[in-house]
């Protein structure tokens, strides 16, 4: 089985790594994107970015920054899934993508009995909803509904909205009667204003009872990568090293914008957990660290096959239920390269900068 390709043709790892290094050396603005990697891969990525002056983004950067923007503009009251499962007597699901079928986190929460469950604006047929009270339908109604609900929780008037004031008041009373409530949302499906309104609602509920937020984490170790970026760069994803020190700008350093505008002239695309491929329309020279079967619209200049963290090799990554990092032992160990090892191979051939520590 082949492990590396240059322009779609099988190649040795050393040749592929050398070609990748040449592309990165020649680049005026390299971009490292996708970044579906474990902690070792993320650490190697940031070190590489520092060395070659690259921008760092994650394929779920939009969702990551939506939650983070609410936190760093207003604040948030959060909890972890393991605590919520044990303690929550009331669960408020918000918007699409949070059913037990769609979210392992919700499935885990519902694994413990005796919870009242409400679901605002599921936006789709919620399927089997026994024991779940559905309020509102379309996700577009959500901002108005959340604002009205927050007003009613604080005893303020709310105008006519997608649902009646009686229904809102019933929900407000139920939330206030919760002993320990949890609001669950997925930033992939909400806008930042809705999330901010929701976090405000959660904070207001804490005036008299206990309530916390529980965002469904994006996949591909997005939260883990964000944390690594935090301690290595002092900033989240969408940070660039073009001027040799890290600069964070959520608009300027968004991967798709950099590619579509032509600013990024070489892309290192990383996706080890699944065969995800870039969604942008531009077509800069691309080096892919992705599973052997990844189907790209056009063959990358270099493709080095990597294994899946926690399957092909042991990994350290964010654990969705624990709410922190853990070690995942390889479920079927193989010789497939890790992202960190692939980056190390490329770095051996780089002439830009010097090896970081």
């Amino acid at each position, binding site marked *: 089985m082949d492990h590396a390709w240059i322009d779609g043709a099988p190649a040795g790892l050393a040749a592929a790594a050398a070609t990748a290094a040449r592309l990165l050396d020649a680049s005026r603005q390299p971009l490292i994107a996708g970044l579906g990697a474990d902690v070792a891969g993320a650490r190697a990525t940031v070190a590489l970015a520092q060395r070659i002056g690259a921008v760092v983004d994650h394929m779920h950067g939009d969702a990551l920054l939506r939650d983070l923007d609410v936190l760093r503009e207003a604040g948030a*009251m*959060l909890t972890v899934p393991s605590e919520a499962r044990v303690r929550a007597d009331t669960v408020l699901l918000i918007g699409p993508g949070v059913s037990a079928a769609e979210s392992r986190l919700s499935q885990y929460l519902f694994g413990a009995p005796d919870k009242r469950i409400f679901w605002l604006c599921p936006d789709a047929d919620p399927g089997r909803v026994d024991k779940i009270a559905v309020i509102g339908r379309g996700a577009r109604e959500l901002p108005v509904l959340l604002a009205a609900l927050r007003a009613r929780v604080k005893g303020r008037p709310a105008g006519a909205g997608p649902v009646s004031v009686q229904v809102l008041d019933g929900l407000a009373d139920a939330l206030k009667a919760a002993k320990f409530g949890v609001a669950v949302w997925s930033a992939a499906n909400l806008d930042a204003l809705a999330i901010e309104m929701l976090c405000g609602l959660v904070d207001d509920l804490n005036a008299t009872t206990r309530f916390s937020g529980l965002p469904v984490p994006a996949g591909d170790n997005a939260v883990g990568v964000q944390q690594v970026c935090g*301690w290595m760069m002092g900033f989240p994803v969408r940070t660039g090293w073009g001027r040799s020190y890290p*600069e964070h700008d959520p608009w300027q350093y968004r991967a798709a914008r950099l590619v579509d505008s032509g600013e990024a002239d070489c892309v290192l695309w990383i996706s080890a957990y699944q065969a995800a491929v870039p969604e942008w329309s531009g077509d800069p020279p691309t080096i892919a660290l992705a599973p052997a079967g990844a189907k790209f619209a056009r063959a990358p200049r270099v493709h080095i096959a990597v294994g899946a963290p926690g399957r092909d090799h042991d990994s*350290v990554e964010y654990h969705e239920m*624990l709410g922190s*990092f853990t070690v995942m032992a390889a479920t079927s160990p193989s010789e497939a390269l890790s992202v960190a090892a692939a980056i190390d191979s490329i770095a051996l051939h780089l002439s830009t900068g010097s090896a970081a520590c």
Partner: protein
Amino acid sequence: MLTCIKGGHVIDPANGRDGIRDIWMRDGRIVEVPAGGVADETFDASGKIVMAGGIDIHSHIAGWSVNTARLLLPEFRLGTPVRPGSTPLSAAGWPAFEIGCAYAAMGFTFVVEPAVSPHFALHAHLELADIPIIDKAMLAVLGNDDFLLGLMRGKESASAVRDYVAWTLAATQGIGIKVINAGGSASFKENVREFSFDDVVPSYGVTSRQIVKTLQQAVTDLGVPHPLHVHCNNLGIAGNVETALATIAAAEGLPLHLAHLQFYGYGKEGPRGFSSAGARLAEAVNAARSVTIDVGQVMFGQTVTVSLDALRQFRARNQAKPRKWAILDGDANGAGVVPYNYRAADFYNAVQWAVGMELFLLIDDPWRVFFTTDHPNGAPFTTYPEILALLMSRDLRNQWIATLPPEAIAVTTLPSIGREYSLAEIATMTRAAPARLLGLRDRGHLGAGAVADVAVYGNDPDRAKMFRAAALVFKSGALVVRDGMPTQRSFGRALTVRPERDQAIDRRLKAYYDERYGLSDDLIKVPGHAIGRPEPFEMVSCRR
């Protein structure tokens, strides 16, 4: 390779040395003066002060709270290579990498992250592993966790608690145990908003006092060198000196360490109902010989408070400056991140500054008072040079006092205190004493066999300048800093303890995690291979 630091004024209180002598190093250790030995490399330290590497026993440098503070406050760290002095936290050593460099520049070679939730231990260790140059360690936090409170509710034996504490230290690779607002976070989850030392945790029927005493006994009996590290209830509240005094009294002759005592030095006197109780507190510490404390000095400027005292941080969130915050009402302690700006013109902040100074100056034994700002809670650790200068000069303190609100100074005793720390006392407080407190026999001194962690300072009468940029720093015998600039970026280790336990507790915890959380207890364990550096841990022996 044989290295000699020649002709410096060596201040090494652990070995009773205070005078001109040479320090010899070989293979990362201090060695006796070799008979007829010729150094492969010699560093001239004449006219300079030579001390062991500094040790900080309480500084929040890694983990969820610290990293959340980074993500919460991008504006505190504008993207400039050398950040201007006017940028808040400009010199705070913000990313992991800068923390190690900034500590080493000041001559510090070992730092303890004091607040790690066991479930977040791997995260903390991953960050610690990316802090270069210095060695580090962390304290695991118990006392709001369901398993311990359940053991106490069930009136289980002291040995069950001991085994659980030992299991926690092994799982998390900690060097000691801390308790933070014992029972306070557990009560907050049941909607309690105020919690004191003799209040009862709902659902468990145990008091904060009982939790502290139970953990103190377990840590002592296990022979863990570092005493139970206590963050008391009622942090930051007027009149909370009573809580601190009650906690000190509860030590009852057994070792107990009270963290950032400054934040508990508040009375209710004066026109604003807020006054310094620093003198009273210092008197109680002086009398309680088994008690040690660190100060948690406040310095003026923008900072961010990070704490696993979720109840306190929740209550403080409305004072956030800038107005944003993160509270994690997570398993056991939870956590909170609340930015705050200490202002010299603010009555309360000025009193807080003075309380810290009073504790430093009125606690008479430098072996029992430790040098901290509770970084970043009282101030960033990069303010240490200024604090050392204040401790060493009454004139300098008087200059500061003259700029502060007189009505604030009036509710303190600070102007009446003439004491000035000597360099030997500074070396005791920041080197010899912390090594002893942590059970590190081969650190904090310059005797033969010690790890060759050495700081050489220019003997500048401007003490802040002297301590801000060490002339030379050696870590394990290697030169790592010259004139305050890092010259080498090797990585140190995390120090851990591993007291013995009855392995029956392992089976019990496996079943507990499975039943309560539907998760494997293995998830929270920190194996060496996960850290991503060779030999990431070093064991400190227990007394038993």
